């Protein structure tokens, strides 16, 4: 296979303050499918086109935000190799192994804290319980979908302080490419990085700001611009707290809308973008063009979009 090493963001674990309201949001409004609950009270979800057992996990807590992201790698051997490389990189702290089965249908996970303060995991095995259309002569989409019904969990955008250390870890140790970046001032100081481990334009992105371990959004993939507009209808119909959109990003070219779950964690659904190859030159945006870089239609920044994190 041509895509090797780290394959994709395989799960994100979010903290919510009212589990029932959160489950209703992520199933009825966003349109994920609940697949399991465990004895710790966690609820596990997947999007309809995902093969592996789960991709989103909610945990009841007294504060909002992200616990961690998990990255699926291509094999057990790669997991061992990358765990060693990450541990020896000098860039991470709090390394540990999480036993197989701690997440249902999931093998052992290597956990570490990256320079921006976020907790990340690598794992090689999660049972492929299958997507909603199956794999033999499948229909293009399944019946019975609810809400926005994205086909997959796509990426997260995270805020933290040591952007340089985190970019070094992802590019030099984990093998990611820098698809796009935002730089500031005549010295071209990097303030944002969009990182890809695949053909996606980003699998994770980071923005430099003073506090460690902040969560900006988890994003889910729709098919096209009309589905983004329909997501906007669902947001209004269900009186969901909207952030902004529908609009297009200059960065990544994505067609997008942002909104909040009932605990204030930001979600995005988007379509479009482009295919990223590892040999594609990095796209650079300068801070004087940050308005259209982030919001291509309005061409100006939005205070809440940049400031509100959990």
């Amino acid at each position: 296979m041509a895509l090797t090493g780290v394959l994709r963001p395989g799960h994100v674990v979010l903290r919510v303050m009212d589990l029932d309201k959160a489950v209703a949001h992520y199933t009825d409004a966003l349109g994920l499918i609940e697949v399991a609950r465990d004895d710790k009270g966690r609820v596990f979800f997947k999007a309809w086109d995902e093969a592996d057992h789960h991709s989103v996990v909610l945990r009841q807590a007294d504060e909002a935000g992200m616990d961690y992201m998990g990255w699926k790698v291509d094999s057990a051997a790669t997991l061992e190799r990358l765990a060693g490389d990450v541990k020896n990189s000098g860039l991470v702290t709090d390394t540990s192994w999480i036993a197989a089965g701690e997440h249902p249908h999931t093998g052992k996970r290597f956990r570490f804290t990256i320079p921006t303060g976020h907790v990340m995991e690598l794992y090689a095995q999660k049972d492929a319980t299958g997507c909603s259309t199956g794999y033999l002569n499948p229909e293009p989409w399944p019946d019975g979908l609810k809400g926005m019904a994205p086909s997959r969990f796509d990426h997260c955008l995270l805020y933290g302080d040591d952007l340089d250390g985190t970019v070094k870890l992802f590019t030099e140790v984990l093998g990611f490419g820098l698809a796009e970046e935002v730089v500031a001032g005549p010295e071209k100081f990097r303030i944002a990085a969009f990182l890809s481990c695949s053909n996606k334009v980003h699998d994770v992105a980071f923005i430099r700001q003073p506090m460690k371990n902040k969560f900006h959004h988890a994003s889910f993939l729709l098919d096209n611009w009309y589905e983004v507009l329909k997501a906007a209808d669902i947001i209004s119909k269900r009186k969901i707290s909207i952030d902004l959109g529908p609009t297009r990003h200059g960065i990544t070219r994505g067609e997008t809308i942002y909104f909040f779950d009932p605990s204030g964690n930001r979600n995005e659904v988007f379509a479009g973008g482009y295919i990223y190859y590892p040999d594609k030159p990095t796209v650079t945006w300068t801070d004087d063009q940050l308005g259209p870089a982030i919001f291509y239609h309005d061409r100006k920044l939005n205070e809440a979009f940049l400031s509100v994190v959990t």
Partner: protein
Amino acid sequence: MKHRIEIVNGSESFGCPADLDVLRAMECLGRKGIPVGCRGGGCGICKVRVVEGPYRTGAMSRACVSVDEQSDGYALACKLFAEGDLRLQVVGKMARCFAGSAGGFHVYGLQGAASQTNN
């Protein structure tokens, strides 16, 4: 039943139905004064301190309002329900979005993408 919400460190006051949180009541009337964030009790942008008046609150992130602060009248306006006329002090504000480096401190003006350097 409507209660009067007065922002003491601003010039705004507005009516708030008993069953609507203070932030939504402000937004519905097109009024300003309290910064609007996630509206879900998670981000802390709409933090206020109730100076006077009876109220109840919904679930608010402990990362934004500590137990001590809560007993001292601090609340998130999106989870604040008036049970009488309230006088509020706005505490929360939009944080700077990008900052920090050894070579300079960059602040990105949120309204117009202007940048400045403070050493």
